């Protein structure tokens, strides 16, 4: 079920009413409703894969329970690795089987021993990368004794399958989300209203910005061989806004929906395109994944505590793994590597924590220096996204070669595509609103505060009308595939 579908528009109010008016009498019942609704939400796409979630839930719950009482360190390690192998095993099989197979075939052919193994037509279960990491965080935290294993199977199931963030995050830590299932939730008016506002903004980002940009990004990337360099630059910029609008829009809807049910999820995006360097960008982009890798991979590997070599090694590992997490394709690995290359100079010169505050805090205009660094970082990000979006490395290289050719200085052309002027205007308005609201959790969080109801409602209605009028053909959320 997509957040931007009529099905979800019917599903959400029904669950909301049942949650606050029927099951509110009992916390367990409320959690049970969340589990049932979440399974229904996921099963709407393909009920067969519910067994995967259920299996992961049972395995991690059971391992957690044993870890709780087990003091033998060897046994604890065996249990931890069982959980890691089961979870990553599923992920590896569904997401990476064909990738490894193809690369083995290529490698063997290269070495003069061609092999012809059987490829499998595997469907990637939606959201597997997200809930796998979420359950893994639970087992690792229980193993490290950062968290007490839960006895409450219903609460644990609800934590694993919580429908707002099940298929595309934010990847919640058990330490943050699980305890919220133990406590009685009371309805909070301002939290619910904030939630609705965030849902509205998320829909705007997805439907108006991402889907409209996708139309041009897809056309330009799919026909890149016939287009000039300046058009390709625009294509990469369209994709830059598409992926941001798409993914951060999903996160906004997820967080906003959770708020309606009294939950607080982690902020997943913090206006990343206003970053002044790549380190800041990675503190603001897909925060739940970046911090997951930081805490469960980078720090256990030694982080930046060791010498230069260890810093370099760990940086490359974390960025390459992050790239590979996004998909079984060399393009994602190159994208990760490129970001590591961007990041390393900052780390090695101890400049990676220079920009911790929001840019131009308390002011409307940034300084020339801030603006220059923002534009430079944005440009580097756009360049990296080319690898992320390209079909393969050859496609990315030919795309970049054309950008670097003299055709870069020619006027953009859009043969067979309608002119993108309206989309460009919408993106500029969007950037302006995001800039204005960059000190909040989401752009329109504080909008209209202190103004009367008529003003606020008028603003919301205008956003609804824009969403209605400027919706492009509905597209699936990109991050579902990861």
């Amino acid at each position, binding site marked *: 079920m997509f957040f931007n579908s*009529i099905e979800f528009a019917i599903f959400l109010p029904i669950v909301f009413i049942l949650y606050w008016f029927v099951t509110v009498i009992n916390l367990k019942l409320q959690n049970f409703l969340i589990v049932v609704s979440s399974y229904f939400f996921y099963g709407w796409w393909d009920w067969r894969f519910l067994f995967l979630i259920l299996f992961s839930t049972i395995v991690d719950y059971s391992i957690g329970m044993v870890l709780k009482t087990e003091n033998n360190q060897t046994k604890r390690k065996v249990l931890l690795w069982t959980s890691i192998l089961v979870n990553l095993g599923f992920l590896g099989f569904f997401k990476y089987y064909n990738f490894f197979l193809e690369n083995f075939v290529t490698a063997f052919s290269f070495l003069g021993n061609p092999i012809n193994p059987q490829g499998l037509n595997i469907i990637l279960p939606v959201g597997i990368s997200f809930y796998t990491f979420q359950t893994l965080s639970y087992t690792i935290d229980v193993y490290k004794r950062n968290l007490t294993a839960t006895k409450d199977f219903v609460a644990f199931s609800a934590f694993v399958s919580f429908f707002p963030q099940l298929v595309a995050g934010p990847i919640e830590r058990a330490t943050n989300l699980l305890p919220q299932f133990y406590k009685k939730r009371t309805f909070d*008016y301002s939290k619910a*209203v904030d939630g609705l506002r965030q849902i509205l903004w998320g829909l705007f980002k997805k439907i108006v910005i991402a889907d409209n940009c996708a139309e041009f990004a897809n056309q330009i990337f799919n026909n890149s061989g016939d287009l000039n360099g300046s058009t390709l630059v625009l294509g990469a910029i369209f994709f830059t806004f598409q992926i941001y609008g798409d993914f951060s829009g999903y996160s906004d809807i997820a967080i906003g929906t959770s708020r309606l049910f009294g939950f607080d999820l982690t902020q997943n995006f913090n206006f990343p395109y206003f970053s002044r360097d790549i380190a800041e960008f990675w503190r603001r982009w897909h925060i739940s994944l970046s911090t997951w890798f930081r805490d469960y991979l980078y720090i256990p590997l030694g982080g930046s505590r060791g010498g230069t070599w260890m810093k370099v090694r760990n940086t490359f590992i974390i960025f390459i793994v992050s790239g590979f997490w996004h998909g079984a394709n060399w393009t994602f690995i190159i994208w990760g590597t490129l970001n590591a290359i961007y990041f390393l100079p900052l780390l090695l010169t101890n400049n990676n924590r220079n920009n911790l505050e929001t840019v131009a805090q308390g002011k409307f205009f940034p300084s020339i220096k801030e603006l220059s660094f923002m534009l430079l970082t944005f440009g580097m990000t756009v360049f990296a996204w080319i690898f992320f979006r390209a079909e393969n490395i050859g496609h990315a290289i030919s795309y970049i070669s054309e950008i670097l050719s003299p055709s870069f200085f020619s006027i953009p052309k859009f043969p067979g595509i309608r002119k993108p002027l309206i989309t460009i205007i919408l993106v500029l308005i969007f950037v302006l609103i995001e800039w204005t609201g960059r000190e909040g959790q989401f752009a329109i969080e504080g909008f209209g505060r202190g103004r009367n109801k008529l003003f606020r409602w008028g603003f919301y*209605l205008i956003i*609804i009308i824009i969403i209605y009028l400027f919706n492009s053909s*509905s597209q699936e959320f990109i991050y579902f595939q990861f």
Partner: protein
Amino acid sequence: MKLFLHNIFHFSILVFTFFTIICICLNLFPESWSSYSYPITNNIKEYIESEMDKEIVVIGDSRAKAGFVPKIIDPNSIYNLSIGGATPISGYYTLKKMLEKQKTPKTIILSYAPFHLIFDDTYPRPISEDFFTFKEISELYSEINKSDTMFWDIEKLNYSKSNFINLSQAYLIKIKFPTFFSAEIKNSKFLRGSDNRRVKNKVVNNMGTFTYGNREYCDDYNQETKYIEFNENKLISKYLKNILNLADTNNIQVIYITAPINKASDNIIKQKFREDYSSYFSSLKKEFPKVIFYSELRSFGNQYFGDASHLNNNGRIKFSNQVKTILLDEVRTHNNVYIK
């Protein structure tokens, strides 16, 4: 919670009012937002409702709409009731609606592009243009449910797997539920009224014929060139047979004439496609021996095409004269073939 629900309720009224106004405008002023196909479809409804009762009608798709010129074939007895993008599904309902209004033509010229026997590239336009009634929509969906097949491009329309949802969506389109029409509103700004009236007058003056492509030469490839083989859609085929059966029951002579394709497309259409297509019509001929078939794929030079699929002015003159000859030939051997 009370305040929250109270505000949600009131804001919903505001949103509901906005969309109700849009819905009313969509229903009241269809000419002002619809594409040019609306006045064409509307012309067919008007023909059926009117006193006009021609002896020969052309039922088909856009290639038929562009190719069969009543003024050339026989200005007194022919009307072109083809619909752009239509498959035999719409064709069946055209005939059914005519018969319900006691209009029984002597002859029907039936003409569909081969790819319109494979899928419908304009569905659900006939619903949004009010060509189908609620009853007909329900009838159609019960057939879809039975045959477990779709006649439209499912990827393009992004429809759900659930038949119930598809039927509900069809009803929502019929009542002009605003969510389905945002692109039309955005693109038209409700300002298409005069353009659509011009199209309507043109179609009325030309007795149902409409020009789709105006180029003097076209060597672009048509839709058939994209297929490797011809796999008829079972549901569309069923409706084609429904037309033939309904005509037979009402003693109407059917002449099936495939409109020509351009030379450029003819040169690259796959052999397998031609063979499948030909064998499909061979079996249809056996099943309906009374029907006269001129269904083979024939081509005209590229200079007769206004676009990849449709005849230009020279093309339609040439083709309509050929059709006139066919009718004059057939009139000698078939009692029901009528031409003055």
